[in-house]
């Protein structure tokens, strides 16, 4: 199975973010503080491709208000070297060729991230030695044969050469969350219940991400209040129905916190999920399968869109345009299905148009035996390229009924639909 390593570094990376990353992949690795490694190679298809995976990861970072830089690459040992500003997607299978132009200093970041600190001085010495003998970029080092590297740079040089060429496999330990889901936030500047609820909102979003990552729903929460002076105290909130969404948690906490009073200013609030259940979609009713079906449909649409492209598969919605190909668009699989009981009102022009469209229109040449009946003329929007189209119902001798048009700008006939 191919590896695609998503590496991200930021000083603000927390275990809650690592837990939240479980919704992208189960292969989240333990790593030194300030860096995050995960292998999304096996879940790419389910996520809908690399750009979609990065978009989801970006949403997580936005929720946690974390900024940093990341890279999507083939091997974890190269990630630190390849990271630049922002998040970069490096093409699959293009590893060593991408490394060659990097400056020699980057070699200090190659390999096992857990040994970087202890080898830091040795690597710096090696880099300065390489600089002295005229090696400027990694390509100069990678061109040398292994025996020569062994002779000149010793065991460290040998190891680095093997890391660069992917001869050694780095096995990072998997991240296993052992602590309960918890968040702590400082409430120094909060003087009222409204203020507390406001700052709770974002923290609850993080809590929701962690719950989704662990596939759990919260049943019981413990709130520890640390006061400026006086004894700290705890309160337990038991939810009548297990909850995962931040919005519902917020509503429950708002009602729960309203009667609580504290004698001195609140300094810190610690929130911990003390009891949880596995999250099963649609578990609220034994007989209601709507949620499960919706979830299955969502996954199914994502798979289709990944396979055939987002413009070729999905649920359509109408747009205002007389041009047939612009009068509708495919909706993203992310959106939920709105409940609809009646057919929508069709646009008036639809009555004279065929039920089936060829996408894209096929160039055609109607010959003299075709019977052409004029139907309508459509001009393209003035701010977009394209001339006037004259549409005809074409009856070829084979008995088909086709929808063809003549493009006045391209001077070409096109077959766009079929009444069959």
């Amino acid at each position, binding site marked *: 199975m191919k590896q695609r390593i998503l590496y991200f570094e930021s000083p603000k990376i927390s275990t809650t973010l690592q837990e939240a990353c479980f919704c992208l992949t189960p292969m989240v690795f333990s790593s030194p503080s300030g860096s995050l490694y995960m292998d999304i190679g096996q879940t790419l298809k389910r996520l809908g491709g690399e750009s979609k995976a990065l978009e989801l990861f970006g949403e997580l970072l936005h929720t946690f208000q974390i900024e940093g830089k990341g890279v999507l690459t083939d091997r974890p040992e190269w990630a630190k070297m390849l990271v630049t500003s922002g998040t970069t997607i490096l093409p699959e299978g293009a590893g060593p060729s991408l490394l060659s132009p990097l400056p020699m200093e980057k070699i200090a970041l190659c390999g096992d991230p857990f040994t970087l600190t202890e080898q830091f001085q040795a690597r710096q010495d090696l880099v300065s030695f390489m600089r002295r003998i005229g090696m400027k970029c990694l390509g100069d080092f990678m061109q040398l044969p292994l025996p020569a590297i062994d002779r000149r740079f010793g065991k460290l040089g040998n190891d680095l050469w093997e890391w660069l060429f992917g001869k050694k496999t780095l096995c990072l330990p998997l991240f296993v969350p052992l602590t309960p889901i918890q968040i702590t936030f400082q409430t120094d500047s909060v003087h009222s219940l409204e203020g507390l609820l406001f700052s709770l909102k974002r923290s609850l979003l993080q809590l929701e991400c962690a719950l989704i990552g662990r596939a759990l729903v919260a049943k019981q929460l413990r709130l520890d209040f640390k006061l400026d002076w006086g004894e700290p105290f705890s309160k337990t909130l038991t939810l009548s129905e297990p909850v995962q969404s931040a919005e519902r948690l917020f509503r429950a906490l708002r009602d729960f916190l309203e009667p609580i009073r504290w004698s001195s200013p609140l300094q810190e609030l610690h929130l911990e999920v003390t009891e949880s259940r596995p999250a099963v979609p649609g578990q609220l009713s034994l007989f209601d399968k709507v949620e499960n079906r919706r979830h299955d449909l969502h996954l199914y649409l994502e798979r289709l869109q990944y396979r055939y492209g987002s413009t070729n598969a999905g649920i359509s919605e*109408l747009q205002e345009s007389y041009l047939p190909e612009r009068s509708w668009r495919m909706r993203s699989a992310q959106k939920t299905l709105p409940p609809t009981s009646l057919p929508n009102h069709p646009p008036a022009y639809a009555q004279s148009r*065929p039920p089936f469209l060829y996408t894209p229109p096929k160039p055609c040449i109607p010959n003299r035996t075709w019977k052409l009946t004029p139907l309508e003329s459509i001009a393209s929007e003035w701010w977009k390229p394209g001339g006037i189209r004259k549409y005809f119902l074409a009856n070829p001798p084979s008995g088909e009924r086709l929808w063809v048009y003549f493009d006045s700008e391209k001077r070409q006939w096109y077959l766009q639909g079929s009444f069959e």
Partner: protein
Amino acid sequence: MPLLRHKELPTLSASPYASGGTLSVLTALEKGGLSQILSLRGGSSKTRFALSCLRAYLGFSYGPPPLSIWISDEGLLYPPVLSSYWPLSRFVLVKASSAKEVWTAGLEAVQSGLFDWVCLKASRGCEAAHLRKLQIQSERTESRVLLLPRQKLPHWPLKLSIEAEPKEVAYV
């Protein structure tokens, strides 16, 4: 209307525009199984016929409209026209990359059990073994599968073959 399976294929010649015709077809289109809709030479619209079957079904069924899917390789259903037959939010459109993909994706759609109606319009036919798989799966998941082939398909896996009567399309 009794359904005769595997022995004799009932063929209906129906007009999608006459309510009685569609209703009798709907009676035949019980849950599960494959039905093919053919255009007669002379310009009958099998696509419109399939859509009018769906609309008639909507008129006679209770509850929210079930999910349907349309898979074809040369193009797509035109959503502004489709919207007069079925709610767009309950209709999945797929343009597959080849005729073979239409049959593969069709089988997957039936196997998923998500769709009550599965419409397949491929530019080429498929092997009889694949049709048999479709038939078994559609009966298991109770999906109604409408096939809109160019050429008439072998009858034995089908429960119904409909020849849509030619009629002037209401384009005026």
